[in-house]
């Protein structure tokens, strides 16, 4: 909103702010370090290589699903089916492992792709509001998964395929999480892709002004379709990484990721109205949320107070972010 202006500001502050406005992720990094510091204070000696490794390992699923969510939200949409998709992919992988890892993994990824395709068709071709469309598919997936679990389970011992286990929980040289590499790869592709590829540019464009896109000869529906497919696929991958890390699947494994997947994105500075933002922020957002939950596990306080504090801290950090970047939401 451009209505009321912000009043007097000193030149140096303005310059500093200009610098931050161009690199808002710096602020998020600062926030992240702040939280790590907090842990160091609450329990000295916690912070160390292995802690970092574990944190990344548990942030990876969120980070990966947040990548898909970011793309979708940049197009002014939202995908509420990501959590159900993660669960489905995880459960399918575990229940199919009996028939071989390859089949298990491929089927799991297929689940993601199909869900993404359905969402994409609904939103891009039939113009269903993304929220409703993905809410609906979310229900369909969980329902379908229940049916699946009743019919397909018990065919063989459910077990997380070794490869999935390795990707999700394995560590190179006993320290560097394998999932970190996968996440890094995805992050690079998404970040570079958004900046440097035509498709990436079009995601922003479609989210900003569909009419302008049409006018410029962009077929927005195609962009949307692809975006939702990618989001579905990434959800599937995230589900696999998650089940790898947890080493067991149930019918609600991924559900806890629905809100965080959105929270990570918006905390990362992507607008829910589309056209503005990026994945670097969401990535840091995912890390921040993960570290924050660690803080609250280690913090000894009554649960209600913890919840209140959690909310308060999120607001404060976001406010700090807005102040320093001078970017009015």
């Amino acid at each position, binding site marked *: 909103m*451009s*209505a*009321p*202006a912000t*009043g*007097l*500001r000193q030149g140096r502050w*303005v*310059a500093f*702010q*200009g610098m931050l*406005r*161009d690199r808002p992720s710096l602020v998020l990094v600062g926030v992240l370090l702040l939280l790590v510091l907090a842990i160091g204070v609450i329990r000295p000696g916690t912070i160390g290589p292995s802690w970092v490794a574990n944190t990344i390992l548990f942030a990876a699923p969120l980070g990966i699903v947040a990548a898909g969510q970011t793309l979708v939200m940049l197009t002014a949409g939202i995908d509420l089916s990501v959590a159900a998709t993660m669960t489905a992919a995880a459960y399918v992988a575990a229940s199919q492992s009996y028939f071989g890892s390859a089949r298990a993994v491929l089927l799991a990824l297929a689940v993601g792709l199909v869900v993404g395709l359905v969402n994409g068709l609904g939103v891009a071709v039939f113009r269903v509001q993304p929220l409703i469309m993905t809410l609906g598919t979310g229900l369909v997936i969980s329902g379908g998964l229940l049916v699946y679990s009743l019919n397909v389970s018990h065919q063989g011992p459910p077990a997380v395929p070794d490869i999935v286990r390795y990707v999700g929980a394995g560590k190179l040289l006993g320290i560097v999480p394998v999932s970190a590499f996968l996440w890094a790869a995805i992050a690079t592709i998404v970040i*570079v892709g958004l900046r*440097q*590829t*035509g*498709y990436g*540019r*079009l995601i*922003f*464009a479609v989210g*900003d*002004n569909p*009419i*302008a*896109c*049409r*006018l*410029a*000869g*962009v*077929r927005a529906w195609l962009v949307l379709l692809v975006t939702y497919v990618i989001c579905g696929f990434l959800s599937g991958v995230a589900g696999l990484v998650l089940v790898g890390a947890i080493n067991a699947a149930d019918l609600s494994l991924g559900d806890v990721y629905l809100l965080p997947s959105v929270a990570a994105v918006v905390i990362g500075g992507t*607008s829910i109205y589309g*056209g*503005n933002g990026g994945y670097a922020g969401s990535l840091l957002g995912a890390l921040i949320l993960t570290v924050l939950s660690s803080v609250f596990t280690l913090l000894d306080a009554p649960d209600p107070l913890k919840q209140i504090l959690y909310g308060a801290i999120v607001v404060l950090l976001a406010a700090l972010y807005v102040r320093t970047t*001078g970017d009015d939401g």
Partner: protein
Amino acid sequence: MTDDAILLETRGLKKNYGAVVALRSGDISVRAGEIHALMGANGAGKSTLVKVLTGDVTPNAGTIRLEGREVRFNSPANARKAGLASVYQDVSLVPLLTVAQNLRLTGTTMAAIRPWLEELELGDVDLAEYARDLPTPTLHLLDLAQALASLPRLLILDEVTATLPADLSERVFRVARRWRDEGRSVVLISHRMTEVKALCDRATVLRDGSTVGVVDLASSGQEEIVSLMLGPAAASVVVSEGAVADTAPAPKVDPSPAVEVRGLRSGLLQDVSFTLRRGEVLGIVALEAQGQADLFECLSGNRRPDAGEILVQGKTRRFRHPHEAIGAGLVLVPADRALALLRQRSVLENIALPMVNQLKRWGLINTRAERKRVKAATDRLEIDTRAGSRVMRLSGGNQQKVTIARWLATGFVTLLCFDPTRGIDIRTKEQIYRVLRELAASGSAVLLFTSELPEIQLACDRALVMFGGRVVAELTAHDATEAALLRAAHGLERGGTGPAEAAS
């Protein structure tokens, strides 16, 4: 008249957005009972000054004195109460409310606004329509009527006439004169030198956010003002009006038809046929809503015609999506930049948008090449990209230029321009005419609808005049005097050259 009472006086008004200095030191002094022009190139800071004056944004420094008393408004509403009412450059009616509701918001009574609606010939606008569903000119006029209803002592018009056809601009001017005669004051922002000279008493000129002079329009010539606006160096570049067409390099590199239109019907479009050749700039002249808009809609591929055909380089084309038209080399520059721009994205991304699609580049973009092409375009139109990280922060005129630069960078065969020079300063207009000529010379075809009749002789080889959805006349640039064009545009030229001839 120097001893007239000063109504409004500002000292060193300053406004910066982050690093961008929109207004460095805006000084303006308006007398009671005068029409005061506020002039300056695109991005000079005119609109910012208006916003600061009316409390739409708060200045970082400076003072505003109204009849000697220092004032500071924290909202346009308060400014209105104090007698300052403005019609902003970008329409400021709430889109999802009906016109009536918009009026209610400002507490304007029907009784108060009726006469002004009549005055501006808005009598039969349906007040129950959503603002969103009304065309921009209507909205601007409604905005004006509402401003008038509050009987302000100072009325500020920021490029209102830019969106208006000639005859309606005339209405606005009449109101302005009346205001002056009643001892009230008007501040008028316009890039049309002629209307400024015809209407205004004095002009305050802004350059790069600072007031560089106040001129008495009666006594001073255009060159003086232009050199004030652009700085002496740049001013010399600007040639006097009327020269472009003659000085342009000889066109007709390849006279083969770029686009042929045969018996086109759609919306208000009754039955239109004509041929647009490579190497020519073909002007379209018409009053509002004579079908010209529908013509551009069809040519740009945004709508399928009800009947008739469009031949592009000899082949019949039926466009289902602008994408296909662009593929066939037809690109559109719409008048309303809001429809064409990605507000939150950078100037570069806005200009590169069609390239991305056209080049079908799903791999990595060659950013160096892209930057070069974009830079070439922005330089050619001299776009002020200081606030280029988000197009919405550009000045109105610069935004308009971006919509043209986009196609310069992307390339095309046929350029469809629908009133492209709205709100563009005199110098840039010259540049754009020049660019159009050069494009034609280099073998492109240009179809130019303009609401500024002089542009025809400045930029075009031929002009088609439309009336009632038909082409009623074809004139060569030489015969296309304003008078001739107007007569034809009002459909007075019965039995003039009909479609058949026009097409040949």
